[in-house]
């Protein structure tokens, strides 16, 4: 299989296996050593690069971990490494502002940080310190303690904030980026160059290969095997526009990335909880690649999206040779990593009923480190509450069973009850009988059991702060 893409300002081709990691392609095949190997599991950000996709006449750039990216998926893309951002003989403004605060000590994480910042600068509509810091949530630095980096963030924002308010449309935007020294001039010519490359529409790759949609967990678990692996890539691009609200349902394509979910106005208008909590799911570069379908099918018992949508009583739409089957997400999980998914069947859509009036929803994720960490326990809760009576409710929890768990008995008990502390405490007692956590590095089983209780209390205290007293529940 031959793959052609533009690496910085050069057209390159790869004849390697589809699974060959981009990180190694960049360093070993192209001898660009500014992209560093820190962990090969998307947890440090030293290998962060920019992935550019042609959308009409402009290019949409995203910061991604090159250790988790298959070269086979790059047909017609623009890949930007630190070498493609540098300006000969001088520092670009972002680099200069980092240098001024001495925001680089050993220098190993630095190219990744510059790329993450550049990725943000290329896409931000309005600049904010908060969002630029979020753009750095996938970059670890062991030397600086981040303080000098944050000072640089402040100066970058104050240097460019006003300029950004004058930015016009996407077409002219890149000219401004070049004028302000965010990226070199050659970026202007990339759309035309990409158009000249055959832009095979995904799914691409090898038809017989393992099917992936993002693949961010696959590389973490099996990177040694990826060098010679064939892969089949599902389309994970531009699904945001396909998110649809029809009748009483919201439909989300399985290939939608977590970042698209996070930033879909359509979705966040019906589920504001997404804007509040999706920043806690992995990191910016991983959110840019990880997909809804991938997270659901990967079937980790702690999968954030599975837990989130379980409590919304979501359904999955499965397809095989144009025959579709709709099943409840809670019935999709049979046992540890075992799904109700037939040979050849694919997850195409997820749908959930639009929340009704007087329905409230809340998501909790508790992990050792708040950001870029896997939850010890996560939980979502949806509740319809009218005239002081619980009409309906659904609770899900991760990290407490072999599958993303839907707690049936808990919900059944609460329906028809008044919202009172004793009732909630009784329901917690029921929830405890529905789970069986195991001890591991993310916590002892006793801790996870306690966390489930705390999550339930957190759901109620967050949704009904006026009706309940914390002291009665703690």
């Amino acid at each position, binding site marked *: 299989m031959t793959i052609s893409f533009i690496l910085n300002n050069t057209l390159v081709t790869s004849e390697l296996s589809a699974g060959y990691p981009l990180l190694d392609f960049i360093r070993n095949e192209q001898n660009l050593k500014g992209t560093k190997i820190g962990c090969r*599991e998307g947890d440090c950000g030293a290998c962060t690069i920019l992935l550019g996709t042609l959308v009409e006449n402009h290019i949409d750039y995203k910061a991604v971990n090159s250790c988790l990216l298959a070269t086979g998926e790059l047909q017609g893309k623009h890949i930007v490494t630190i070498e493609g951002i540098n300006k000969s003989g001088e520092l670009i403004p972002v680099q200069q502002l980092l240098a001024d605060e001495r925001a680089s000590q050993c220098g190993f994480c630095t190219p990744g940080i510059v790329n993450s910042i550049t990725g943000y600068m290329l896409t931000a509509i309005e600049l904010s310190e908060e969002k630029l810091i979020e753009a750095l949530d996938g970059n670890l630095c062991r*030397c600086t303690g981040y303080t*000098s980096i944050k000072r640089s963030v402040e100066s970058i924002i104050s240097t460019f904030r006003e300029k950004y308010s004058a930015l016009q449309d996407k077409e002219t935007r890149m000219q401004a980026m070049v004028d302000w020294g965010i990226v070199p001039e050659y970026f202007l010519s990339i759309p035309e160059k990409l158009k000249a490359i055959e832009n095979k529409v995904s799914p691409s790759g090898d038809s017989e290969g393992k099917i992936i949609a993002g693949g961010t967990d696959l590389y973490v678990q099996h990177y040694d095997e990826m060098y010679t692996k064939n892969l089949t890539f599902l389309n994970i691009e531009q699904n945001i526009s396909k998110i649809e609200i029809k009748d009483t349902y919201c439909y989300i394509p399985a290939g939608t990335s977590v970042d698209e979910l996070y930033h879909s106005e359509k979705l966040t208008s019906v589920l504001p909880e997404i804007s509040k909590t999706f920043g806690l799911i992995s990191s910016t570069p991983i959110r840019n690649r990880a997909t809804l379908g991938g997270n659901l099918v990967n079937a980790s018992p702690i999968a954030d999206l599975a837990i989130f949508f379980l409590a919304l009583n979501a359904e999955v739409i499965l397809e095989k040779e144009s025959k579709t089957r709709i099943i409840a997400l809670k019935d999709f999980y049979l046992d540890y990593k075992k799904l109700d998914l037939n040979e050849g069947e694919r997850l195409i859509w997820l749908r959930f009923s639009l929340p009704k009036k007087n329905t409230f929803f809340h998501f909790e994720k508790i992990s050792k480190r708040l950001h870029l960490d896997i939850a010890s326990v996560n939980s979502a809760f949806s509740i319809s509450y009218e005239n002081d009576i619980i009409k309906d409710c659904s609770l899900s929890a991760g990290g407490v069973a072999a599958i993303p768990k839907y707690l049936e008995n808990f919900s059944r008990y609460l329906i028809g009850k008044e919202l009172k502390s004793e009732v909630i405490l009784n329901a917690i007692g029921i929830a405890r009988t529905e789970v069986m956590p195991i001890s591991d590095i993310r916590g002892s089983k006793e801790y996870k059991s306690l966390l489930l209780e705390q999550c339930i209390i957190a759901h109620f205290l967050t949704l009904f702060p006026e009706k309940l007293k914390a002291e009665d529940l703690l």
Partner: protein
Amino acid sequence: MIKDFIHSHLKGESVFIDDMNLPKNTLILAVIASPVAAGVLKNIDTKEALASDGVIGILLADDIPGENELGNIIQDEKLFVENELEFIGQPIGIIAAENAQSAKKALKKIKLDFEEHTGIFDPRDAYKKNLLIAPPRTFQMGNMKSAWEKCDVIIEDRVDSGMQEHLYLETQNAVTILGDNGKLFIYSSTQSPTAVQRTVASVMGLPMHQIEVDVLRLGGAFGGKEDQATAWAAMTALAAQKFNRPAKLVLGRHEDLTYTGKRHAYSSDYKLGLSKDGKILAYEVMFYQNGGASADLSTAILERTLFHSTNSYYIPNVSATAASCKTNLVPNTAYRGFGGPQAMFVLESAIHRAAEVMNFEVLDIQRKNLIKKDDTFPYGMKVLDNHGLHCFDRALSHYNYDKKKQKIDDYNRTHTLKKKGLSLMPICFGISFTSTFLNQASALVHVYTDGSVGISTGAVEMGQGVNRKMKLVASKVFSLSIDKIKIESTNTTRAANTSPTAASSAADMNGNAVKIACDMILERLKDFISEKTQQKVDTLEIKNNHIFINGEKSHWSWKSLVWDVYFSRTSLSAQAHYATPNIFFDKKTEKGDAFAYHVVGTAITEVTLDTLRGQYHIDSVEIVHDFGESLDPLTDRGQVEGALVQGIGWVTIEDIQHNSVGRNLADTLATYKIPDIYFAPDKIDVDFYENPENSKGPFNSKAIGEPPFMYGIGAYFAIENAMKAFRPGLDIPASAPLTPEKVLMTLYQEKLLYKKYGH
């Protein structure tokens, strides 16, 4: 803006060893490692692996031409296992292959036949079985027996602190290239080029002059590449010589986390006695250090634990004993603070416990007992100044401690689901290697005929900015702009018999050596002018790249002067040696002036605790720190901030746990969590307490690398205080890291007890 190495960092152009362009025939190595923590290796079947695609060869203990020995202080560590398997990840041999994938594939085809034994992982268990790395040591002062009788309050408790992974972003690595006549060029990511040179020479059975070790820069180290970098370099040397090809070894992150030593976990018992007015009268402490399977630097670390057992306090009667215990874990090693943090955490826990029992403010006990001028440390050294006390008081006033405390109390009265906590953490850290002989450094300075300057020292640049400081020293002596000065790689042929870049002292000692060497050259330059102009030397001055005589600009620029001096056949090079003066330590009496000086300071930490979820956030850390006269404030501030955040990580979320067979459960970055940009404190403020009284560092500067790490301990007590604000009187076991799990399990211990026994 000065063009500096930071420019190449920002452009990704700084070369690390894994980035080097090596000959195409370079072998890539993979390590065959022990899968069990304890046992006996009976047989290694390499047949299938050897036949695997791309494999060139496999080297085991028998293939070592010299000594199969790594230990620097105590010779108890093999490069490759001979019989005994002592920890998971212990190297048994290496596979050399054409590329990394072939090496990895072959690794899976190695068949090990072994007998597995039950390992020992707890240092107290090891101590009971008398499994010690060296005999225990005791530092003593005063009279313990009579002291206890005078105490009104006596507190006894146990304190634990966990292992910590260095998590340098650049993993361990090395390259060996063959030179002329069997010489081996080694590129090693090491803090200790001489240790690599010495050990490789011994492993290879070669004289040290046949081994040249070169270190350009390290992608972080923090102590983790002091002794722990050596083995990988030795493996590349073995393979390069054996197969007559360059050889490279880079550990993957998982391997690095599994194979390499970490900060020592400690378990300690203390007894603290106070008078009823809060004066500490007696302190007895027993430290059980978890040394891991071999000595590495454990005994030196243990020694520093004893040196810092009383931290910033004067205690008239002290008995501190420490034992380095041998367990079936990775050989634990140097890590920023070098046993000091573990010691300070114990005493600080004791003080917090005493304050609670006596109903005192912690601050009052801390302040009442701070060490003052003319007080004596348990090791017999006298305190020369009151900087520690001044920093403490300045922290209180400069950062409005009382007001802050009031605000937090008010907040806690009105909030249930969130509580705030505050703490004060004074530090006092001795500067110098406690092994006196290591307190020496050298510098080689060349002034080239175009006026540019090249400097080689024994200091290794690992992000701490030592190269920049060396430049600043030379630039001050020569009054030369910094861009004319280059710091060369650290290389054993230009700086021989060097001490490791460690103990915070590299900038001090190498900086002093640079200063001496530059002064030597400067003197020659001045002598030359004096001879030519018949002016006295003291009328000459170099300023801004120009020579002034009696305050008047002469015709000599720096460049033309250098040229003229060269023509006069005078050396423009100098080599200098520096040995820290007036330090000594007698291990028989455990007394002596072991340190050149102490670095002191105080941190105020404020945290917010989520009482429902057990998670916490570090709001701010405000620090008054003793910098001497900072050579480079931006670098020094960066060191304080970075060390602090590592220290906070150690006592909060950096959690290493082993399962019952000694496997590290935090062996990926998905499971081992260091502070990220959100976890780091919202605000870190550093107040420069500058004082010119230290004459030991170049231009009155002070060492900076390690001391600020210990400010991080304050986060532990701030969280603890927030927990107590939620549950007054709560019994919190003194155990770091105080993970969100421990917090929640402690806050709700009654609920858990009820559940256990209530049904």
